[in-house]
């Protein structure tokens, strides 16, 4: 045990001697969480819309006024010809268009069916669909205004409540996701370099001839990073509470313990990468190149996991961040306890155990 502490101390020296890296390690997550917390939102605002008004009557005027009053749309310019839509879409200057045929208001007044055309640039299907929904909702609103429904018989009136996030604040979803993403990448990369650096520098030989079990060499390397990552987590958490106004509805201690478990699982993954690669460059490329996109896609904070084909859902289960994200949402935002997240916790714990075992085992075989 004493020997182990000596090793841990040596590793601490290594880490804390490099001030610039430390600065980067604390500075970057802070900036990222602030940047993404404020900037990322899937809510659509101010989308450029082209209005082609061949009718030019009171009805079309009223509808255009309603569209321009909504926060979703910016009317780019009126008085367009149909061809301009194509040109503007190609330039990326607008996302959708609304075409009023001549006689729109007349048809409506005479109790006939008035035509209206919504055209979207569907290269981005998500935006196209959402904008179509917003436009349709505005048209429905307008129709209700001219066709009062107040005394229509047999009305079903849906009353909607938004749980946990009544203001539909985008950062509620993104902050826990970015938290999981940032911690995952940083922790994995940190340890992935640690062993391979000693291999590359030749100092590993010295460690291996010492009368010291290789297991401890590996573990001692992970300890300083564990401390660093936990400090990082606390900073990120404080920021999201103070700056991004995220609530902490559940038990803080539980949240902290879960994060520690998550951090350990990522560090173990890094150790595994480190013991199977031969150069720092390769180790870092594997942990960055190999982890970044999958972590963004499979954590579930941008794309819903349940939309994915089954094999991909299974792959997503292999990522620690996917489980941590669920835990953070449950504990932090929903205020739930271990009674609800015990399953996710067990999965994380199991993963950590497996990753640690494999990395220690594969480290040993390299000794022989």
């Amino acid at each position: 045990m004493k020997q182990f502490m000596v090793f841990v101390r040596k590793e601490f020296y290594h880490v804390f001697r490099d001030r610039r890296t430390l600065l980067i390690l604390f500075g970057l997550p802070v900036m990222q969480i602030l940047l993404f917390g404020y900037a990322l939102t899937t809510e659509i605002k101010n989308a450029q819309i082209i209005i082609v008004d061949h009718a030019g009557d009171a009805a079309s005027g009223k509808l255009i006024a309603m569209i321009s009053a909504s926060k979703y749309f910016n009317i780019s310019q009126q008085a367009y010809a149909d061809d301009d839509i194509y040109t503007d879409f190609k330039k990326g200057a607008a996302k959708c268009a609304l075409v009023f045929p001549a006689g729109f208001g007349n048809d409506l007044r005479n109790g006939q069916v008035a035509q209206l055309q919504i055209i979207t640039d569907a290269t981005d299907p998500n935006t196209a669909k959402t904008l179509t929904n917003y436009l349709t909702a505005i048209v429905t609103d307008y129709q209700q205004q001219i066709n009062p429904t107040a005394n229509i018989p047999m009305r079903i009136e849906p009353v909607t409540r938004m749980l946990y996030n009544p203001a539909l604040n985008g950062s509620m979803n993104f902050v826990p996701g970015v938290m999981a993403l940032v911690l995952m990448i940083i922790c994995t990369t940190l340890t992935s370099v640690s062993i391979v650096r000693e291999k590359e520098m030749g100092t590993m030989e010295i460690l291996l001839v010492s009368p010291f079990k290789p297991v401890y060499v590996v573990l001692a390397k992970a300890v300083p990073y564990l401390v660093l990552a936990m400090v990082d987590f606390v900073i990120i958490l404080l920021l999201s509470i103070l700056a991004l106004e995220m609530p902490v509805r559940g038990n803080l201690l539980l949240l902290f313990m879960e994060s520690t478990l998550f951090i350990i699982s990522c560090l173990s993954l890094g150790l595994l990468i480190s013991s199977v690669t031969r150069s720092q460059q390769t180790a870092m490329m594997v942990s960055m190149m190999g982890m970044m996109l999958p972590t963004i896609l499979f954590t579930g904070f941008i794309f819903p996991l349940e939309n994915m084909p089954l094999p991909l859902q299974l792959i997503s289960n292999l990522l620690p961040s996917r489980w941590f994200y669920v835990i953070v949402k449950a504990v932090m935002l929903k205020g739930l306890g271990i009674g609800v997240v015990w399953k996710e916790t067990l999965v994380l714990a199991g993963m950590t155990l497996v990753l640690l075992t494999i990395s220690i085992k594969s480290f040993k075989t390299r000794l022989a």
Partner: protein
Amino acid sequence: MRTLRLLLEKEFRQIFRDKGLLPVIFVMPMIQLLIMPLAANFDVKHINLAVVDRDHSTYTQQMVAKIASSGYFFIKGYYTDYTPALHQVEQEKADIILEIPAHFERDLVKENKAAVYLAADAINGTKAGLGSAYLNTILGDFNNEIRMKWLPVKMPGAGTIDVTYSNWFNPNMNYRLYMVPGILVLLVTMVGGFIAALNIVKEKEMGTIEQINVTPIKKWQFILGKLIPFWVIGMVDFSLGLLLARFVYGIIPLGSLLLLYSFLAVYLVALLGFGLLISTYSANQLQAMFVAFFFIMIFMLMSGLFVSVDNMPGWAKVIAKLTPVTHFIDVMRMIVLKGSRFADIKMQFLYEIAFAVVLNGWAIWNYRKTA
């Protein structure tokens, strides 16, 4: 010229000697391009619904059946109380609770109106918003159906508006058309950005840079010698990806390939200049990697691929405009999906050229000062 050729030979040898690195540069991105687009689907089409039915009438049964047959909703369970339904939401097993109060049917017939209550897990605001909007539409349809059954007379008054929809450039609303080109850009960006960021600093760490510094190589020759091999790697990776997009996803660029490749060529110079710049400032590979990670993550998340740039606050839009990736993803989509021409992407081209000049100039200027 001969100096440059020798430098290039050295760099290429170094890259191809590292057998661990090659699969990471060429195979891993392609595997990701095969898998990732399948995962990237925003479509909200799988909403789990917990139903709390306190009425148990014919109407509530018909209503739930109609919701279930819409294709958007999966009925996760029926409850007679709110609490167990809320538990489903807490455990992420349900997204929305539909609560039908007691006497729903009686109220609807006798009082002429009845309320139903929706409670959505709004941590993911998009899903909650779209889900309850869908549900509202279905409820509205159901409402009309039963009304028509009871009072089959059309209400007098103004006309109705019939909305037709057309979705240009991607009429089937296929997500892959949208994601594959974007993900290819990200993959090329990661390979190029990381590998360039690590390179000069690696020589610093290994001490080999001293040997180069004592030779009469000019700064720009050195930087160019570093840049060209990675530029070639980027070109190869991109071409492989384009072939994959063609044969696996059936995506064939509508616009000119020449235009696409000219843009790529400039883009890669800008990106690699950026990587080399990071490298000249860093003291070791770990530092370089983290700085590169920091910026590339910003490039990725703010590029408009995952989250549309239009929705961001003004200052964030400025940041998005100042990242080379945003413009390339834009241009990639425009050329591949819309067949846009040079005139359409002129602005993006100018941005990219400016990035290339500034970043590389800076890297050349900064190199050796710190070495």
